[in-house]
């Protein structure tokens, strides 16, 4: 408890909880709806940010998240159609994410290429491949449906907000929480962070830098596959060119905003999701008549203002972006 009071996140949480509670008292239905939609806005961004965190915590910059989402969602869609199984589609999407990641790892770990270039290559490659091979007129056999969790979904407010979604959403939460605990409480996490901060320190302690980087980047790809699958198989149900609409780039910003911490990034994504759902709500209620453009830029402006005020000097993992040369240092 004592440590809770010292945490900054605790105060952020309070700052959200108190007005929320007030709004909930005013209009429980709308407040609940806004929050539960905020979660659907937030989850793809949060998962995409997890892809970034997984990579960057071990020292690999990944600006190819957008490409990963684009290609995995594409593959999820067509694989599900071809095999008539969304489950198989999901698995193949994860495998595709892993494959893309392995390409990234090959370029940045083995070939020691500039990592921003490596990520850019993923992005263009995914854009090119998906629009080149896109065939329209296909339909998913079915989708991951909403599956309220028995019991939990009856909790007022939280039940609706958190426990009335589809399995991929739940899986997303599991992944984020697992990642958080794994990163800060397991030896894998300790080693990963060490590799991201000071690879030769990890190497001299008997941790294989390249192996860990390959593994983590691959897992990141799988998370990217989950994110792409969520978008296409649970949230939207169809695929088109440019499907991911820049989420991979927004996620980069949220990853930094969340200070490379899974819960931080989740919170940042929620903040973003809430602003979007809130902006929609303004239009639904028609209470204000400001141009939609200004409503639309609200979340982005808020992020900048919050950061400017909190003067977030963020420190990325120190070894990020630098290829590791064994035996040097």
């Amino acid at each position, binding site marked *: 408890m004592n440590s809770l009071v010292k945490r900054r996140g605790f105060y952020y949480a309070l700052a959200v909880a108190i007005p929320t509670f007030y709004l909930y008292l005013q209009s429980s239905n709308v407040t609940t709806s806004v929050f539960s939609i905020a979660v659907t806005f937030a989850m793809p961004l949060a998962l995409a940010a997890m892809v970034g965190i997984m990579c*960057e915590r071990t020292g690999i*910059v990944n600006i190819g998240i957008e490409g990963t989402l684009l290609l995995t969602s594409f593959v999820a869609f067509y694989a599900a159609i071809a095999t008539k199984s969304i489950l198989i589609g999901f698995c193949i999407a994860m495998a595709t994410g892993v494959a893309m990641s392995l390409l990234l790892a090959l*370029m940045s770990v083995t*070939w*020691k*290429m*500039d*990592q*921003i*270039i*490596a990520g*850019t*290559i993923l992005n*263009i*490659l995914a*854009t*090119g*491949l998906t*629009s*080149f091979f896109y065939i329209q007129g296909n339909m998913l056999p079915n989708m991951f449906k909403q599956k309220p969790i028995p019991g939990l979904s009856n909790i007022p407010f939280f039940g609706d907000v958190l426990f009335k979604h589809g399995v991929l959403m739940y899986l997303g939460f599991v992944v984020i929480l697992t990642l958080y605990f794994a990163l800060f409480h397991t030896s894998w996490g300790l080693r990963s962070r060490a590799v991201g901060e000071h690879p030769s320190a990890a190497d001299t302690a008997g941790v294989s830098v390249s192996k860990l980087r390959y593994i983590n980047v691959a897992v990141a790809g799988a998370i990217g596959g989950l994110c792409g699958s969520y978008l296409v198989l649970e949230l939207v149900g169809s695929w088109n060119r440019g499907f991911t609409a820049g989420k991979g*780039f*927004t996620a*980069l*910003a949220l990853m*930094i*905003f969340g200070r490379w911490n899974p819960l931080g990034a989740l919170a940042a994504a929620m903040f973003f999701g809430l602003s979007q759902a809130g902006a929609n709500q303004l239009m639904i209620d028609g209470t204000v008549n400001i*141009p939609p*453009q*200004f409503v*639309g*830029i609200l979340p*982005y*402006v808020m*992020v*900048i203002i919050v*950061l*400017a005020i909190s*003067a*977030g*000097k*963020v420190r*990325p993992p*120190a070894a*990020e*972006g*630098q*290829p590791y040369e064994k035996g040097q240092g």
Partner: protein
Amino acid sequence: MSALINEVKGKKQKYDVGSWLVPIISVLAAMLVASLLMLLQGLDPVLAYNSLFTAAFGSSEGIAATLGKATPLVLSGLAVTLGLRAGLFNIGVQGQLLSGALASAWAGYALTNLPPFIHVSVALGFGFFFGALVGAIAGYLKAFRGVHEVITTIMLNSIVMGIVDYLASHPFKEPDQALTRTPQIIESVRLPMFGLLPSGFFVAVFLACAMWWILGYTTTGFRFNSVGRNRFAAWYAGISYKRTIFFAMLFSGGIAGLGGAVETLGITYRFEPAFNLGLGFDGITIALLGRVHPIGIIPGAILIGGMRAGAANMQFDAGVAPELVDLLLAMILLFVTAPLISRFFKNSSNRSLTGGWGN
């Protein structure tokens, strides 16, 4: 002694074969791979490439179109390059370019009483200024508030997009016109063509040379480079980290804005949001393809400009979807930077061009 100095200085300009051959072989290798994709679809790669390159480089109109496309690409590539030199990753070129484009369009139609030469300068200046303004916001937040430029520039892209849309659809909208766009700029402010060559291209090339010279031969360039490479040592040597960051971002934004202005004054003659999409992100690719070197950007931009200019012809003649160009681009970038080809050449360094988010 002076012989030694001259030899060393001469060495700087000498390029090894690798640095010329690697990109060329890369382009060929990428085309080869893309051929396989076309064959897979039952299309004729020879016809496709023939039509692509004939359209892009085979006629003077083609070359003009190519250079027209290359112009904003050079400028957005330069904007990214300047940022990278100072250790900044400017993902916000898109937004800066848009705001420059809108500002110059406004200056181009709303200010009507100026003599042509002054009018052109003012319109270009507006483009530079408003691009710089957007860049400077990110620069200020980075330098004085420690907010990461990757966050701010991504956010600013969306913000600028919203504002520009609003302006172009309300206050600056062409009267009696349903579309979101400004009126046309007046005749006299349009950038002329030199024969078939767009004068904007010369502006871009001039700027590239100027940046090359400034980065390589002036104290200002030394400041940018120093901060980008080791900001602590730069500070120790009397270079203000904050000022340099701020101005690097400001100028980077300004160059991007100028890109928007040149596009508006030379090609589109008005502002219409859809006209400038994608130029910002292409800038990143081009800066990397040009190895973060102002002059290296020019051939990269011409190549990409040419491929984009010829894409429709390729579809017309050979039925190949224009997206093939994206695939080609990805593979060229891969082959140029991966040690797949370069390892056959000595001296081709695998040096890191960007500093990640670290600086």
